[in-house]
């Protein structure tokens, strides 16, 4: 983790980067083994997560192979999204590679802020033959594809929202099973909450992601009929019931400050065994199987999200790497994406314990499946089942809507309001409904 003798190199690099970054012309790709992008500075930005962290460790190899210098920026999820959205909206050239975040993908693609990648993929000079774009799960490529059929991002994660219990031994001690329905969940939580000072339940405060499976489970939905009818339906009786149920989980069983928990905080809490149940994607849950950092690796158990009165609707998420429309180093950016998501790199990540690959070859590989069986629970199989189910029922269509981020924020606020006792479920959801309508109108929709 610590860099030895970095001072001079970094100062020199800083000086060079300052002066040269925007001014250096791109080198023409050389024939043969000469460094292809010598002198180019690439600005890569994504949010901090397992895969980007692995990439950050392996960056020097990319830099050595291509001669490019990579500025790697990985702030937290909300900070990243706000910055990326602002930069993309002006078609700026500050970033060369960006993470196409799942809830923003149709907003960014639909507004024309990303570069279509098909030409790069098809060009044999730019793309190695074994990149094999079709190896990526179709379900993962779909959210990264625009209405025009072009691909705008290469997925690096395809995950599903699953339920995890970090101290399943406490559940077993209480004589109960892994909860299957929403009622079961409450029963189990009541039995194990605060046992051995372990809080019952927490979820990361991006409720527009963690809450929606429950919204669907109770029979509600975000829009009336996405993507055609975008009238929000956040104040229906089912939605209110779902919000009430979910916020109550946080209020009754949550740790201190539950509504401020960010995703990596949740992962940390699960690893340390401070919180029992949570819903998260394999991107985070796979880390619970790391014996070096996870104290609960022997007591963890995974399962699908609970089934509600209307059924089970696990959420799915896909993030990808894309190139902004305004980037000035698109070829170098594509070279980076190619390296970052090549078969070698993704396989290496899987071997290192990465939990949500987007390549079918990785998903099917023995290494992946073996690593993802944590304490007897097959995380990979659960995720695959959930993803398959999602593609059948189509309940994730609400996320293909370009104005979803605004509604996402309203959901975040609504659940936080209910869980902190500032409003009851009905008031909060009605407020979310009214605000969403106002925001959608402001975004130019006619409702």
């Amino acid at each position: 983790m610590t860099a030895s003798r970095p001072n001079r190199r970094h100062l020199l690099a800083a000086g060079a980067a300052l002066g040269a970054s925007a001014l250096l012309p791109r080198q023409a790709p050389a024939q043969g083994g000469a460094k292809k992008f010598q002198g180019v500075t690439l600005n890569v930005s994504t949010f901090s997560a397992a895969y980007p962290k692995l990439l950050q460790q392996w960056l020097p190899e990319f830099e050595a192979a291509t001669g490019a210098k990579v500025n790697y920026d990985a702030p937290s999820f909300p900070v990243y999204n706000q910055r990326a959205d602002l930069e993309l909206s002006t078609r700026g050239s500050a970033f060369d590679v960006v993470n196409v975040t799942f809830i923003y993908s149709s907003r960014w693609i639909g507004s024309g802020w990303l570069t279509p990648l098909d030409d790069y993929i098809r060009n044999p000079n730019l793309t190695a033959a074994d990149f094999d774009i079709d190896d990526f799960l179709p379900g993962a490529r779909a959210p990264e594809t625009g209405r025009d059929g072009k691909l705008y991002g290469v997925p690096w994660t395809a995950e599903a929202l699953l339920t995890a219990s970090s101290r399943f031994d406490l559940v077993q001690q209480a004589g109960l099973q892994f909860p299957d329905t929403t009622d079961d969940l409450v029963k189990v939580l009541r039995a194990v909450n605060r046992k051995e000072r372990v809080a019952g339940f927490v979820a990361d405060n991006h409720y527009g992601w963690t809450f929606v499976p429950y919204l669907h489970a109770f029979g509600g939905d975000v829009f009336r009929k996405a993507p055609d009818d975008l009238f929000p339906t956040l104040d229906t009786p089912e939605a209110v019931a779902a919000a009430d149920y979910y916020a109550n989980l946080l209020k009754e069983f949550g740790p201190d400050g539950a509504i401020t928990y960010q995703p990596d905080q949740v992962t940390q809490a699960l690893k340390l065994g401070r919180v029992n149940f949570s819903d998260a994607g394999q991107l985070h849950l796979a880390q619970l199987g790391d014996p070096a950092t996870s104290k609960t690796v022997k007591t963890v158990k995974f399962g699908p999200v609970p089934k509600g009165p209307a059924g089970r609707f696990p959420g799915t998420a896909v993030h990808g790497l894309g190139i902004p429309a305004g980037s000035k180093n698109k070829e170098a950016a594509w070279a980076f994406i190619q390296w970052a998501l090549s078969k070698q790199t993704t396989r290496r990540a899987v071997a290192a314990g990465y939990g949500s690959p987007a390549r079918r070859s990785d998903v099917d590989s023995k290494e992946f499946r073996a690593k993802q069986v944590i304490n007897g629970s097959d995380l990979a199989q659960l995720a695959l089942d959930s993803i398959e189910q999602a593609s059948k029922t189509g309940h994730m269509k609400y996320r293909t809507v370009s104005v979803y981020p605004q509604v996402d924020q309203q959901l975040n606020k609504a659940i936080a309001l209910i869980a902190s006792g500032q409003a009851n479920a009905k008031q909060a959801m009605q407020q979310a409904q009214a605000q969403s309508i106002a925001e959608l109108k402001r975004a130019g929709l006619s409702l």
Partner: protein
Amino acid sequence: MSTTLTADTPLLHAPPAPAAPLVHAPALPAARRPRTAWLRRHGRSLAAALVLAAVLFPFLWLVQLAFRPAEAVFDDALLFRPTLDGFASLLQGNFLRSFWNSLVVSTLSTVMSLLIGVPAAYALTRWRFRGRRHVALWILVTRMAPPIAFTIPFFLAWRWLGLQDTLLGLALVYLTFNLAIVIWLMQTFFEAVPPALEEAAYIDGCGVWQAFRRIALPLAAPGLAATAVLCFVFSWNDFFYALILTRTQAVTAPVAIVNFLQYEGWEWTKIAAAGTLVALPVVVFTVLVRRYLVRGLTAGGVKD
């Protein structure tokens, strides 16, 4: 010289100990006098020490956290083996570069503000024209205006002009508050320079700006230095403009810290180390210009 500079600013700078100390002791019976007298003599010092501790404790806690080893962050132990790991981890990534950017932008902005503002302050001091009060109000408003009011138009303009994410662009934006500070503060310093000296120079045939360069400026030099430092500090401390108007090239240190706000344990030492480093220049400069600091912070509101 210091007496002239402070004589007309009674509200802003404590003069040396007043002639008659203010004693609040009411009459007391003789028997109790010694104990209460001790308390009265040292009570204030004690209270001052306690208040000082309360004021500095949060800051010192941050600084000591920067030296903790990562595992000890969640511990209760007050004693620990200090390490420089937190600072070393800052060397990876963009932080050093952002520190450098902060230095460059602050210096650039200070120099520009002084170049434009000092002559203007001098002109405003010596040339009593009618619109003076309006100009003063305008200057006050620019200093008081919330950054968001300027960021939106600047963002669009800079995007169009290509100054987005550049050090020059950021330094130009900082003029919105720095110029006002320079004009206001230097006015007070120039006012303390007696015009008689300049009148004498005029009689000798000096032009206005020659007199300025030879007489007023050297006499106001301490004030100039203090103003420069204040401009530097205000530029260094800015967060909002840098957050919106910079991305990767011109990102300044306060904004770069935000990247560290992840949750894992070892990030806390990194955050603390970064915070300490970003605060360091400011604290050092504060000690240097402490006499003029309060004046700088009330710029525009108190006429003197």
